[in-house]
């Protein structure tokens, strides 16, 4: 009996889903009327309406008919902007859980003894793929080579979403957290749906780090120095090319007569990047590291994007020449400590004057890049307080003008993330990600009134007023939020 009931439930389940799709796009139709609309892609509509249905903007203009079933929001005195895009986050990407296990008792590692790969089988844990590496005896498998990790399959959204929405961010790039060839990112909408429903685009890019790799502490394991990381990167890409060549050869032979190449998820995962079909995001900050990334991209014909890019302005000419965009981190605080000398081990005492100058340079970075013709988006990478996205975007906007900075937060980000047809502006047909504000998002004192993601109103948590003497300016409080009920 029980079993029968289960079976019935299973049969009914898809039906239930069809009747009550929890899909983000489902829900009422909205119309925002009498508002000042800033589409970013075109002229401002001083007094107009936006209509959203099924998650899509269906009409924008001074004189558009309002559907009878629409929930109407009177936008008198309010401004409508495209939702902002955070060009690089680790939002909803679970932390790998092997770190503690890896720090168990020290073992003697012989370069000639084959290592049994650790068995974990946990979600969020990605072991290196060594199936096509006969050199395993001489060089143990490199850690952090997990290009087959696809963020969209691992999403675990947390409560930080409301805070991100609270500064007007409606879409993010979610990138893998650590490793060298870290995995593949996804563009997500911060809607209230299931993780899968948040995905706008996957896999977007392959993510690479050459500095530190994000391994906590760096100790114990190949590779740990930058020269090792670059070597491991290079070997992984060569292996993928070899894999493809062997596969093609096997097919050329009609699948017989010669040994077939062993299946390699890592090599499979690298094919799109190697063919130029998928961009490769290099997480690098220092100018010299950016040049290293450009050289590696050139070596393997990769479509590079630079992320973090704190010193990118110093190599703007090289970036422009290579046609490489930069996702500039809005964390302007320079990394603590000086650069190491011999062996990277000698930290220098901090020089406050130098730190201040580094911060000034970082603030000007985006403006210098844009001036040089390098496409720029912004990201929250490295920020500890998410509200600083707006605070720092305002600072970055000073040398370039707030409209250029707004473009970087919307249309340029959408272009760089390959979703410009769907996101980044207010145009009919685009995904209805909108923010309704009391002014320009980068003007001090502007308050957020409504946030729409995929055409639906979402709850947000407005940033708290900054503490301390510097933060005298009134900030929108949580009570400003107005929810319109159908």
């Amino acid at each position, binding site marked *: 009996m029980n079993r029968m009931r289960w079976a019935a439930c299973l049969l009914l389940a898809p039906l239930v889903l069809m009747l009550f799709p929890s899909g983000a796009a489902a829900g009422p139709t909205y119309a925002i009327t009498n508002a000042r609309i800033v589409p970013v892609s075109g002229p401002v509509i001083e007094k107009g309406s936006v209509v959203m249905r099924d998650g899509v903007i269906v009409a924008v203009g001074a004189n558009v008919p309002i559907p009878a079933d629409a929930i109407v929001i009177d936008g008198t005195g309010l401004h409508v902007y495209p939702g902002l895009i955070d060009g690089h986050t680790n939002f909803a990407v679970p932390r790998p859980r092997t770190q503690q296990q890896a*720090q168990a008792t020290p073992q003697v590692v012989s370069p000639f003894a084959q290592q049994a790969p650790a068995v974990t089988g946990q979600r969020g844990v990605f072991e290196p793929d060594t199936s096509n590496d006969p050199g395993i*005896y001489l060089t143990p498998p490199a850690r952090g080579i997990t290009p087959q990790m696809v963020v969209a399959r691992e999403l675990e959204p947390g409560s930080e979403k409301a805070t991100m929405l609270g500064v007007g961010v409606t879409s993010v790039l979610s990138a893998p957290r650590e490793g060298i060839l870290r995995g593949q990112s996804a563009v997500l909408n911060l809607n209230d749906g299931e993780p899968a429903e948040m995905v706008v685009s996957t896999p977007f890019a392959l993510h690479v780090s050459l500095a530190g790799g994000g391994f906590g502490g760096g100790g114990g394991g190949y590779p740990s120095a930058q*020269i090792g990381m670059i070597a491991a990167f290079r070997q992984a890409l060569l292996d993928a090319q*070899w894999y493809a*060549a062997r596969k093609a*050869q096997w097919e050329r032979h009609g699948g017989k007569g*010669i040994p077939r190449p062993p299946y390699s998820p890592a090599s499979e995962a690298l094919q799109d990047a190697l063919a130029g079909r998928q961009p490769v995001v290099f997480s690098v900050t220092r100018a010299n590291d950016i040049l290293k990334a450009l050289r590696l991209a050139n070596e393997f014909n990769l479509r590079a994007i630079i992320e973090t890019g704190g010193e990118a302005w110093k190599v703007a000419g090289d970036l422009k020449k290579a046609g490489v965009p930069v996702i500039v981190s809005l964390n302007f605080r320079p990394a603590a400590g000086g*650069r190491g*000398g011999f062996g*990277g081990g000698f930290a220098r005492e901090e020089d406050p004057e130098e730190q201040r100058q580094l911060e000034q340079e970082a603030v000007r970075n985006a403006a210098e890049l844009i001036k040089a013709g390098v496409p720029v988006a912004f990201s929250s990478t490295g920020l500890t307080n998410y509200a600083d996205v707006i605070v720092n975007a305002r600072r970055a906007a000073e040398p370039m003008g707030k409209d250029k900075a707004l473009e970087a937060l919307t249309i340029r980000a959408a272009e760089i993330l390959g979703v410009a047809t769907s996101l980044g502006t207010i145009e009919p047909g685009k995904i209805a990600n909108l923010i309704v504000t009391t002014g320009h998002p980068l003007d001090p004192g502007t308050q957020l009134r409504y946030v729409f993601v995929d055409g639906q109103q979402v709850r947000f948590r407005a940033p708290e007023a900054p503490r301390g003497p510097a933060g005298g300016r009134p900030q929108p409080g949580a009570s400003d939020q107005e929810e319109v009920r159908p």
Partner: protein
Amino acid sequence: MKNLQHNLVAGAAVLAALALVALAPTAAQQKSNEVFIQNATILTVTQGTIENGSILIRDGKIAAVGKGLKAPAGATVIDATGKYVMPGIIDEHSHSAIDGGVNEGSISVTSQTRIIDAIDPNNIALYRALAGGVTTLHLLHGSANTIGGESAIIRLKWGRPREEILFPGAGRGLKLALGENVKRSGATPQPGQTRRYPVTRLGVENVLRESFTRARQYMAEWDAYGKAKAAGQDPPIPRRDLTLEPLADVLRGKVRVHAHAYRSDEILMLLRVADDFGFKVRALVHALEAYKVAPEIAKHGAGVSTFADSWAYKWEAYDAIPYNAAICLRKGIPVAINSDSDERVRRLYQEAAKVIKYGGISETEALKTITLYPAMMLDIDKRVGSIEVGKDADLAIFSGHPFAPASHVVMTLVEGEVFFDRAKDLAKRAQPKAPPSGAQPPPVRSADADPGKQDP
């Protein structure tokens, strides 16, 4: 009193200005591709010493050397009256300007790692080396691994893009290391760190033999593939292995071997391994016990790149003697005095002078230990290492004889271009610091490497 101070300051400024006029090329002159150094004592290294001589540089190369030369019209003239010119110093063993760690210390065979991938051309250590008359550095991995990786040779065009500082046409080199550092005697593994093979000198030899055996198999695999391809077959494509490739190229004689080694027994071990596998060791680095096995080293044809008088800083350095370089030189071994340090690199000329004190080596031979001999070890002696017509104009101008204790470098040229000018440097230091706010940030900011204590 105050007036006197003013006068002193003014006097110093005038002196500095005079020095600038004397040494700095003017803007108009810079357009010419000719530089003329006149009235110097020239230590050619290969062709004796020329008193009151001149050097004509054209397009970065030495076009003429000798007495009675006339400066061509439009040439930049550097008056070196009372000064000494020697070939730019070449440091056979340096770890300067390498980003993100000089050792991939996780495993003991890391031939796949390349120094060229991590060079920082803006590193301040390079400028400091220029201030010591150095124009070429051999950048190597540290000594944590039996097989460290591929080294790089750079010329000190500090602040230029990497492409311009890489020594043009330089061949490939591989760093090996033996002994204490490799076997990690006494190292306590940190939590999360793995203990690593090898932990004895026997193990080091085993790693070398195992690695080169694999390299031989790898080579054979590719050779067989090439043959089958040439015969019109379509055999399975072998995998490129970046660890074995450089080792195979050592076996093919395409890559120089520079081996960090201290004790005589391990030096002999390495020479035997090399003989067994049919490759040559180009340079034994540090080699503080080389004097014990100098005939064997000479027979193999290896050079020795050593310190002048550093010893007893670790167990395997206890049998070192300062006569090491002299004994090796007398056996016909090319000897280089290296720095292994961002600090010592600024005074290699004083280190070379010690070879005269200990062992009575001739002045010219002592000069060769920081010029021609390291150039030979690096296969760049056709271009640098001595002052000869046709060679690159990599030159160091000293205030007096480089071996005189009070002498210092006044100017360093790389390919005829001035990259260090003491007068300019001093004048710049006298200027007040630029106001930080609102000022355009400098075009390049260099990483400030600490000249910390370094383990050779």
